[in-house]
């Protein structure tokens, strides 16, 4: 019994210490001298304008220069382009360091744990950097520091933006969250608890979409011809081994294609704005549907795992209400024994903006593994922005149905609550 309780405590502790990073960073707010609410509903969830900003390589479409307040320091006058290739192509660096910080702390309440109430203060300290390096290049980096001298360079990538002058052609190189993830845990998730299909592992040591991958991603976005919605796509090749160096020659490949019907353009408006809108940016009337595919090979414990994932997602914005969900089918085949394990993972979520600073949300999630193991979870939550850059969020992970899952240490079946205080500056 004591061993069992210890195991639960360790699993819970490990889970709450897992990174839960954001993509909304005050460095951007400083650069444009604008509020977080320009790009976020409540941090870190991006609103449609914020997604267009991201799709433009962290630039405000269609004319970033008109709205930026903190000027770049030029590395060579623009006319040096005329001298190339006899001289270095001119670039730029930010006038103020593009660095931000984040601290979040959790109170974890787990009725079945030895410590029913645990103060995880702080859970994590992050150093975030993001910005542009003149025309056509941008970057993002995130360093996570957790208690116990744990330091992780969670993400660090460089983007070659708008290759050939179109938002349809961009290349990301580095370590990043792949766009095959149905809904980002960095800039979409409001709750401390992760999307269950994202954190789920079908086999022990196998792929989960929570891991950031090292590789190349070619992607693009283009607003529709009517100035609304539009198409987004991504194809990528990555190591597939998360934060570690690859342990096999085979690379993982993936793709994503989505189309947004109506609403704010995915790559922004064609009209230059005189100033940034900082309020009511969450409202949109749109439906986005997407499909994803991921195929790879893993090597763990001396065993080779050939696997694939395929899925679809829907994201509907109806005024103050956001309904979204995804379904994913996957199979892992251990080549040595030719044994396969299939699963279906799904979730549906509703988020409602009650006031500009308060969001109520509930999410229902399901994992059906080979129709033998069945997990159902519901996560209600309330998110309160006590300032534009400070939020308090409380969620309750309630397992309606559980069964042990070999590869998924977090799915112990403990229902628990968390209250998080989150500040970015």
């Amino acid at each position: 019994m004591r061993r069992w309780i210890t195991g639960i405590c360790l699993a819970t502790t490990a889970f709450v210490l897992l990174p839960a990073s954001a993509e909304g960073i005050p460095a951007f707010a400083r650069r444009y001298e604008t509020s977080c609410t320009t790009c976020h509903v409540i941090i870190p969830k991006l609103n449609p304008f914020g997604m267009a900003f991201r799709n433009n390589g962290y630039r405000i479409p269609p004319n970033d220069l008109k709205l930026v307040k903190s000027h770049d320091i030029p590395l060579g006058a623009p006319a040096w382009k005329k001298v190339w290739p006899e001289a270095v192509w001119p670039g730029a660096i930010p006038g103020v360091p593009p660095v931000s910080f984040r601290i979040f702390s959790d109170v974890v309440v787990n009725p079945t744990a030895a410590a029913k109430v645990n103060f995880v203060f702080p859970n994590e300290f992050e150093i975030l950097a993001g910005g542009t390096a003149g025309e056509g290049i941008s970057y993002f980096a995130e360093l996570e520091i957790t208690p116990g001298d744990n330091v992780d360079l969670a993400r660090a990538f460089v983007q070659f933006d708008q290759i050939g002058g179109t938002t349809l052609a961009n290349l990301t190189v580095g370590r990043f969250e792949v766009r095959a993830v149905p809904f980002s845990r960095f800039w979409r998730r409001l709750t401390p608890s992760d999307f269950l299909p994202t954190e789920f592992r079908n086999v022990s040591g196998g792929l989960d979409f929570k891991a950031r991958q090292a590789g190349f991603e070619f992607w693009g976005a283009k607003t529709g011809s009517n100035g609304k919605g539009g198409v987004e796509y991504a194809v990528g090749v990555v190591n597939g081994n998360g934060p570690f160096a690859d342990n096999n020659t085979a690379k993982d490949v993936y793709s994503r294609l989505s189309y947004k019907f109506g609403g704010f353009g995915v790559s922004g408006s064609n009209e230059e704005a005189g100033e940034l809108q900082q309020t009511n940016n969450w409202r949109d009337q749109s439906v986005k549907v997407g499909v994803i595919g991921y195929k790879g090979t893993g090597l763990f414990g001396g065993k080779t795992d050939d696997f694939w994932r395929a899925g679809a997602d829907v994201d509907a914005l109806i005024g103050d209400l956001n309904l979204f969900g995804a379904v994913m089918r996957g199979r892992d085949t251990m080549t040595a024994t030719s044994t396969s394990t299939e699963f279906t993972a799904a979730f549906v979520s509703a988020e409602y903006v009650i006031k500009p600073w308060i969001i109520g949300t509930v999410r229902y999630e399901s994992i059906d593994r080979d129709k033998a193991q069945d997990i159902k979870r519901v996560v209600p939550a309330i998110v309160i922005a006590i300032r534009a850059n400070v939020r308090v969020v409380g969620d309750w992970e309630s397992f309606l149905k559980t069964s042990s899952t070999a590869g998924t240490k977090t799915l112990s079946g403990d229902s628990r609550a968390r209250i998080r205080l989150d500040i970015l500056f």
Partner: protein
Amino acid sequence: MRRPLQTALIMVACGAALLGNGPLADTATISGKVTCRGVRDCAGAVVYIAKIPGRTFSPTTRAIMDQVRLTFDPLVLPVVVGTQVAFPNNDEVRHNVFSPSPVKRFNLGTYPKGVTKHVVFDNPGVVELLCNVHAEMSAYIVVTETPYVAHVAAGGSYALRNAPAGTYDVCGWRPELKAHCTQVAVRDRDTVQLNIELRR
């Protein structure tokens, strides 16, 4: 203070050119607003009459591209074809002036404070100026075939006063944006409204 002085010099030059080459019947005004897409503002933009068939104009009588406080001054200097531009170094450090532009390719070398060098610009077009010592320095000489040039104000407005009657192209240009020309027909004492949009 430099821009009004420069405008005055251009007007003087225009007057001299008109006195020397044609009748004093230039009474029209072409004005409007310039919109600059993809850049912060219209700083450095100019509007000019590209060419008037059958008329030629004398070079600008006095044209100076100064070098002070690690910058070229002015950012944009319009001159008539054939103008000799002076490049004094009035800074505390040595500068180099060169142009990679096919309109006028030259390199004046590196020279110290107190030295002035000269270049004649004998073809129309935009000439980019750079300094090999200071990569952030740049300026532009807009070589036109007429002296009718207006600097665009901060808000984007411009006015080409004392323009001649006739049919000709009016062009707008700004650093980093493409020139855009529109043909207009102007009669004596006309006031023509022409808005210009410049893009990358």
